[in-house]
């Protein structure tokens, strides 16, 4: 229904309400802010990002400070989320762990989007190189994704950078496949043919016409990839094949917490809740973005 309104009555409605230029230029932005779930998710994620950026200023304790006097204490005034088996403050570790999660989530998505979009554009536009590229990516997609990540980490060894490398390899094929499918549709359009007929070079056609046309589904997909990457990083760290075990991350905390699960539930529950909330709000934001940017794929 929003779609109909934005098609037919957009100009008239704006004029009546005296809406600013932004609502006319980006009609999707209005349907985005009209959805309270999306707005709340975006706000939560902004707070998470801020907390991660300013972690050292916000946290009450040093996340790596060992204090044997307060080992395995439940939530208290001094340690709101309790302490772990080496007396470290759980709240501080969770806030610092968010840095790693968000860093991995965002950097993996940026790199996978750049690499995947390039491969997808080339593969969709040039039929000659389509088959070799796509068959290779099919091969990578033949692995259950977490298993491919585990396999790569097993060879490279645990470190934050290696997690980044492994997850870029895992998520690039999905993005390439998506961009390829929109490219295949776009390159048949009349405006691409007319661009070619006036002598534009392929590079300019791809960047100026084909790529922007596939941008909406790409942005939506990227939101979900951030969420997947965060879950995968936590899973890898939980298995001991992720970020260096001494670095506070949600996955590492859950791994440490499982050893003392019988005695200290807070070591497992709180980092897990942080993980779930972040992933949930990312997914909700992705759903909202899809409804706003890509009305054809709208959920009913």
């Amino acid at each position: 229904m929003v779609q109909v309104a934005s098609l037919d009555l957009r100009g008239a409605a704006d004029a009546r309400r005296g809406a600013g230029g932004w609502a006319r230029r980006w009609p999707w932005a209005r349907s985005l802010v009209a959805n309270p779930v999306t707005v709340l998710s975006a706000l939560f994620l902004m707070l998470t990002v801020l907390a991660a950026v300013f972690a050292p200023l916000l946290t009450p304790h040093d996340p790596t400070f060992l204090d044997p006097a307060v080992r395995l204490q439940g939530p208290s005034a001094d340690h709101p989320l309790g302490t772990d088996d080496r007396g470290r403050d759980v709240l501080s570790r969770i806030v610092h762990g968010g840095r790693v999660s968000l860093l991995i989530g965002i950097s993996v998505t940026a790199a996978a989007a750049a690499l995947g979009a390039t491969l997808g554009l080339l593969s969709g536009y040039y039929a000659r190189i389509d088959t070799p590229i796509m068959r290779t990516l099919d091969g990578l997609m033949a692995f259950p994704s977490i298993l491919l990540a585990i396999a790569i980490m097993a060879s490279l060894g645990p470190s934050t950078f290696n997690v980044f490398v492994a997850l870029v390899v895992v998520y690039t094929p999905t993005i390439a496949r998506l961009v390829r499918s929109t490219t295949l549709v776009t390159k048949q359009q009349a405006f691409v043919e007319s661009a070619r007929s006036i002598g534009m070079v392929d590079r300019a056609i791809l960047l100026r016409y084909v790529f922007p046309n596939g941008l909406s589904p790409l942005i939506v997909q990227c939101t979900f990839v951030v969420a997947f990457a965060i879950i995968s990083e936590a899973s890898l760290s939980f298995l001991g094949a992720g970020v260096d075990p001494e670095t506070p991350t949600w996955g590492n905390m859950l791994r440490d917490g499982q050893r003392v699960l019988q005695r200290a539930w807070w070591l497992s529950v709180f980092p897990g809740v942080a993980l779930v909330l972040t992933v949930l709000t990312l997914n909700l934001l992705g759903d909202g973005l899809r409804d706003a940017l890509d009305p054809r794929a709208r959920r009913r």
Partner: protein
Amino acid sequence: MIAYILRRLVMLLPVILVVGVVVFGLVHLTPGEPAAVILGDQATAADIERLRDQLGLNDPLPVQFVRWFGGVLRLDFGESIFLGEPVTGALRDRVQPTVLLTLYALAIQISIGVPAGVLAAVRHNSPLDRALTMVAISGAAVPTFFLGILLILLFAVRLRWLPSGGYVPLAEDPVAHLKGMLLPAVALGFSSAGLLARLVRSSMLDVLREDFVRTAFAKGLPERIVVIRHALRNALIPALTVIGTSVGALLGGAVVTETVFTIPGMGRLVVQSIARRDYPVIQGAIMAIALTYVLVNLLVDLLYVYADPRVRLGGS
């Protein structure tokens, strides 16, 4: 149909080859000399040379690949460095828990996902629909290992109803076996159930708008019959694809779930082998799981063609 199957099998070959190259390449991705990395700091030059010989690392890469891949095709993954037995044997001992866990999780996924999706579609836009959709979205945000930990906390630590881990073979004691597998299967199957429910819901909504559904209602058939016998059968066809891809997610998730619940399956073997740097085992297990996934997807695609003849007729 036979031509279609053959074509699909031929299309599978490059995929299997790429899978093979990736898994083979794993050993050579390691920074530095693989044999030295495997043996650790205390190894002498002679030890390293012996292991290089055993692993065949002294041959040119293409020769190594052909020998290794030839072995894989005969289900021979080489010798484990740590366990002192052939990888194939080690895997065979650990297949049962992994396969059963995946199947139980699949059963849970289907038995939660399909009814929930149908209910949400039939009561479209009702509070029940919105509640089910919210549960499905939240379920997808809970990683399997964290759901597993929560289930252990509640049912094993707090209530003491079920064991927190371990494995009893099915043949030994079926009741204890099922009791032990219940929590891991729920942990693994629940989040995929949400995905399936959302898909069943949307394809049910499409089908319920079709003319033949209206005709069935017009004939005076009760809602139950129309929904189950007329609509659901058609709505499940697109769900087949999701079930196929979620086998991959379940197999991958089983690796993590086995670690949470200390189940001696292939996934736990992979995780343990990482610390032991037992590359032949890692390679063999990952190759076996990836090949299983590829074959399951082929099977699902063929089922799809069988269930929906339009695909076959349109394709050829």
